């Protein structure tokens, strides 16, 4: 029973973190219908920055968000204008985005190797005291609880942005129907640029905590995060940012319970679920209907 509860609590915390990691990828897909295959690399860059801030200035990752989030938001804005509008003018923006961001991800991984080397780096657990907390009779690292709490706060912030602001209303209109949104006076480039900035900032924010939650930072770990994030948003519903949370819950619990009871299967079962979802419900668990292209 104790193992069962441990797996439940751990999976819950992982689900929150995975939601944050994948949220930006779904936001970009929802608004721009492009796939950012370099999503994981932005997460890794955020992680390196947070680690550097911790080592050199003693920032804990929560504090480092004050630097990481605005910086990566600005990077997202700067990258949007030379990259995305050109993609969207192509005959097949979705496939073009695959190819372009595939290249971007390799370039970023190469840069990370140049600057940070191939060795794993991680944040010091001891930044948070006490080291462990009791949650539902399960003892978990405080760092994991903080990671989950920040993730939930970020999800709430994205919800408020989408459902409580004028910019969010424009963003949702754009997600539903691009042509109608334009005809109704929505400046799609401005809305998309902000969404792209948010997406990169969310990835980097997740990166600030990734090395605390069992994923030591290395240049190559970005691919893993892109893969996990992509699986999560397909399970939840492509193009629906808040469905990411459900996708992350399914993925995290599949991973968490198999990791406890069938450890050899822990990296396989979540993807078997992904395949089952694609076959049974291609629009994702919360998708309204099959995607339109």
């Amino acid at each position, binding site marked *: 029973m104790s193992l069962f509860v441990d797996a439940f609590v751990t999976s819950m915390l992982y689900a929150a973190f995975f939601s944050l990691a994948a949220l930006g990828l779904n936001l970009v897909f929802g608004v721009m219908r492009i796939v950012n295959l370099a999503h994981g690399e932005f997460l890794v860059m955020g992680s390196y920055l947070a680690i550097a801030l911790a080592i050199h200035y003693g920032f804990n990752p929560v504090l480092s968000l004050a630097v990481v989030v605005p910086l990566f938001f600005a990077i997202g804005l700067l990258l949007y204008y030379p990259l995305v509008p050109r993609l969207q003018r192509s005959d097949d923006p979705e496939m073009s985005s695959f190819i372009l961001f595939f290249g971007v991800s390799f370039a970023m991984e190469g840069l990370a190797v140049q600057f940070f080397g191939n060795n794993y780096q991680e944040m010091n657990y001891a930044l948070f005291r006490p080291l462990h907390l009791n949650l539902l009779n399960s003892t978990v690292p405080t760092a994991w609880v903080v990671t989950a709490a920040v993730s939930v706060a970020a999800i709430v912030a994205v919800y408020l942005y989408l459902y409580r602001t*004028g910019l969010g209303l424009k963003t949702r209109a754009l997600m*539903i129907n691009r042509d109608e949104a334009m005809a109704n006076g929505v400046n799609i480039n401005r809305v998309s640029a902000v969404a792209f900035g948010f997406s990169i900032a969310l990835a980097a924010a997740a990166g600030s905590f990734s090395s605390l939650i069992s994923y030591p930072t290395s240049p190559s770990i970005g691919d893993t995060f892109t893969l996990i994030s992509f699986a999560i948003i397909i399970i939840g519903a492509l193009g629906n940012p808040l469905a990411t949370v459900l996708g992350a819950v399914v993925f995290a619990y599949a991973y968490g319970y198999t990791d406890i009871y069938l450890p050899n299967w822990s990296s396989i079962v979540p993807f078997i679920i992904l395949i089952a979802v694609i076959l049974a419900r291609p629009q994702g668990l919360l998708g309204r209907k099959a995607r339109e292209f």
Partner: protein
Amino acid sequence: MEGEVILSLQGVTKRFGSMEALSRVSLSLGRGQTLGLIGPNGSGKTTLINVVSGLLYADAGTLSFLGRRINGMSPHRRSHLGINRTFQIPHPFHGLTVRENVDIALLFGRKGRRTDMDQAAEDILKLTGLSDQSGQMASSLNTGQKKMLDLAKALATEPKVLLVDELAAGLNAAETDVVANLLNQVKKSVEGMVIVEHVMNFIRKVTEDVAVLDAGRVIFSGKFADAVSDPKVMEVYLGTKGSP
């Protein structure tokens, strides 16, 4: 009454690969004029609406609105300037209510915030017969109601020129009459209107001025009564002499 030219197309061409969807199209819309744009399927009517509203950009030619060149101007800026349109197949924002759909157009479709949002939304919903559906999700509307919602959204942007793309398509005779009466009311609130339509009876009820497109070219421009006896128009609609 027709007055000064408010919308002008001079030699407008739009290509899709090697196919010219619009070929050196020249048309003008005077202040107070309603222009019916007719022609067979594939003649370029909707492409023309897309080019004027900015969803497509012309490859050649000049588009001007109120004396200002609008080639290359984005759709949202054209909306702010006073050009808006309905869609042949309306796709309202399905995750939002009817009222929220109209609110988006009220909020963002023109420059400057309104102070009378509620009243404006109510008036537009009443005019388009959607008052009772105000709180309903847009996805629950039937096809006719979705078309009315599309019109309501376009009107909410307070257009100077309204481009109406096959609003009567798929409607029965009674519904067509209602829509024709509605557009005749709308005429009073806009400075000009272009109506794309297949249904000739419908066009006749809303305007006398028509332009006929065929294979991307304007083959007739004048009064409806003259169009129906024009040899080129007859050929397009009825086929050449001796054809099967």
